[in-house]
């Protein structure tokens, strides 16, 4: 099954590459310098701020319509924060999120809450946990129909028809409408979540570890479903995962995050063939791990950096095998590579000097 999906993906990717280079299209999403800092409070009676967690720090990327961006990184690297800040589930501390919709560019980072409601029809989220993301007290029909009801997009028979159609699209049976989520398996529940997210035909979908909680065999099914729906509905995905092998099958480009920052961003093929950042390389070494329980085993020594207490210089340097003096004092910048892609590592500048 996986093999088949790979071939299919290859085709669509080639097609998209062509589009990319031929036209200077307006990106659907343009993120610049996006930051989300969480204050840390002490536990006493008087709440006093004692620090700050830079969960996302200076995130920038472009996303073309129809493209899929993967965001990978270890637990706590800030992937969820980035996803939620883009969708304004969290208010960003700083930065700019230009969203191109209805021939208009809207800055999602600053758009007032009132206007945000309408924009919700254009951007949606698929959640990681298929158990907690569905209200256990609502029937499948109520869950999937809710977006249409909130935005008054359909009523009566039209509503029922749309729900039925969507359920069929995600591979569920219309008879399941009156059931409650507890009667479904994890994979089926995730399909319900996908149906809810896509029923309004959004432009942008953030899938936050949408398959991480699922069995490996079910993972492939759900990924294939998401790919089919992408082509069907012309969706643009931000696909968050902590596992590079998942990303490989669905993403056009991949951003690798470490401690709230993007350390490398490249076309999927290029990233897998020629990873530049030592962290990316470490992640790639860990890919063949067949045991889904060992998520954090990246062949890396040391602990994941705590975004609340970052080391000076490059946040990755205490764990880096190629670390040298400069890494301990200077924070590397995210720079464009000649071959395409972005990299934030001093090796990059060293190489440049040599050349």
């Amino acid at each position, binding site marked *: 099954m996986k093999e088949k999906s790979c071939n299919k993906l290859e085709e669509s990717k080639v097609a998209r590459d062509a589009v990319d280079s031929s036209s200077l299209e307006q990106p659907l999403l343009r993120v610049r310098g996006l930051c989300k800092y969480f204050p840390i409070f002490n536990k006493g009676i008087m709440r006093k701020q004692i620090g700050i967690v830079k969960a996302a720090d200076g995130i920038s990327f472009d996303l073309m319509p129809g493209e899929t961006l993967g965001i990978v990184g270890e637990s706590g690297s800030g992937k969820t924060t980035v996803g*939620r800040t883009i969708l304004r*589930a969290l208010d960003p501390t700083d930065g700019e999120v230009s969203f191109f919709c209805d021939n208009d560019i809207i800055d999602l980072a600053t758009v007032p809450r009132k206007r945000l409601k309408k924009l919700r029809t254009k951007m949606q989220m698929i959640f990681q946990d298929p158990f907690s993301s569905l209200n256990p007290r609502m029937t499948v029909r109520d869950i999937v129909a809710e977006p249409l009801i909130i935005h008054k997009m359909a009523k009566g028979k039209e509503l029922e028809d749309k729900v039925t159609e969507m359920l069929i699209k995600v591979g569920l049976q219309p008879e399941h409408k009156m059931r409650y989520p507890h009667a479904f398996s994890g994979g089926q529940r995730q399909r319900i979540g996908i149906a809810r997210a896509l029923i309004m035909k959004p432009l942008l979908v953030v899938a936050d570890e949408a398959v991480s909680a699922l069995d490996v065999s079910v993972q492939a099914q759900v990924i294939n479903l998401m790919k089919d729906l992408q082509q069907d509905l012309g969706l643009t995905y931000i696909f968050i995962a902590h596992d590079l092998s998942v990303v490989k099958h669905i993403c056009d480009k991949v951003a690798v995050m470490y401690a709230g920052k993007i350390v490398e961003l490249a076309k999927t093929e290029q990233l897998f063939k020629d990873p530049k950042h030592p962290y990316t390389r470490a992640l790639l070494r860990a890919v063949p791990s067949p045991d889904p329980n060992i998520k954090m085993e990246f062949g890396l020594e040391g602990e994941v950096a705590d975004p609340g207490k970052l080391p000076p210089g490059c946040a990755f340097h205490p764990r880096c095998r190629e670390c040298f003096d400069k890494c301990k004092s200077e924070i590397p910048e995210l720079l464009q590579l000649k071959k395409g892609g972005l990299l934030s590592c001093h090796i990059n500048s060293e190489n440049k000097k040599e050349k």
Partner: protein
Amino acid sequence: MSKKTKTTASYLSQWQLIRLRFFKHKLAAASLFIVVGLYVVAGFSEFFATYSTDMMNINQQYNPPMPVKFNFSDGLYVNKVKRNIDPVSFHKEYTETDEKIGLTFFGKGHSYKLWGVIPCSRHLLVATNTTEEIGTDKETFFYLFGSDKYGRDIYTRLIAGARVSLSIGLIAIAISFVLGIVIGGISGYVGGKTDLIIQRIIEIIGGFPKLPLWMAIAAAMPQDWSPLTVYFCITVVLSLMGWTGLARTVRSKLLQLREEDYAVAASLLGASHSRIIFKHLIPGFTSHIIVTLTMRVPGMILGETSLSFLGLGLRPPVVSWGVMLQDCMNMQAVALYPWLLLPLFFIVASVLSLNFLGDGLRDAADPYSAK
């Protein structure tokens, strides 16, 4: 579990599951019937009563309960009593005579207005008196549970007292429900400083010693207030003390559920705050709210009775279980006329069954219970 029940289970809502589990709990199910029964009787107290609460009969003070008998020629009947007064102690003794008073179901008795509106004169069980006899010296009296020192019917007063004692709990609960939901809701949904302040206030209220507070309030209550005002005041006092527990439940549940993915999902779908709160968050713990409320009703009932018993709460001519128990302050009276203690039996019965009901509801509503 057979395959069939398994498939139907997937179509059952939360409430249907709770009901199934609840009725497996026999004691709780029985308590439910008792509680419902008590409230029905309290609701239609004028009909269930034999007389009016202020009916006095100086000729039959401290009449003991009259056992209801049955035979085929007379139907239901009680024996008439004859009073002898001990010439030394003035202690009144009643002896049964052979004369019978017939009893009829749904017979005509004292006329009354149901809920103060609907004129009516039928009662559940009355002594057979002709309409002309009622209210005159010829009327024969039927004291099912005996009479008190003014010859008032204890059974009638128990039922009338049930209306006051049981309703005061419900009304106090309703007020504390509103207070608890609103204040707890604000605390949990808004969070931050607001939450902090509300929590401290709750702790202060919770730390107040109850009895001195009640006494202070009773002392502050003007003596010339009408019984209705006093009743209202007692209710407010009880509910002001009682909302904190619910507010805590609501707050902690909101804090917990607010972070659930489905709440985040709803807000990302564009749902308004009120939709999120009322459609997604509150339904997640209505069962908890109901349980918390049920568990608090007995406390409210006990609060009213103890206040009234101590003379701090309701006062005659209002009839409540606590007011009736004031007659038991006198140990000698209790020793000689033990039926005066009957309100106690009803208090215990209603408090116990409400507690069992609450327990059963909690077990049924808790999704993690073992069964």
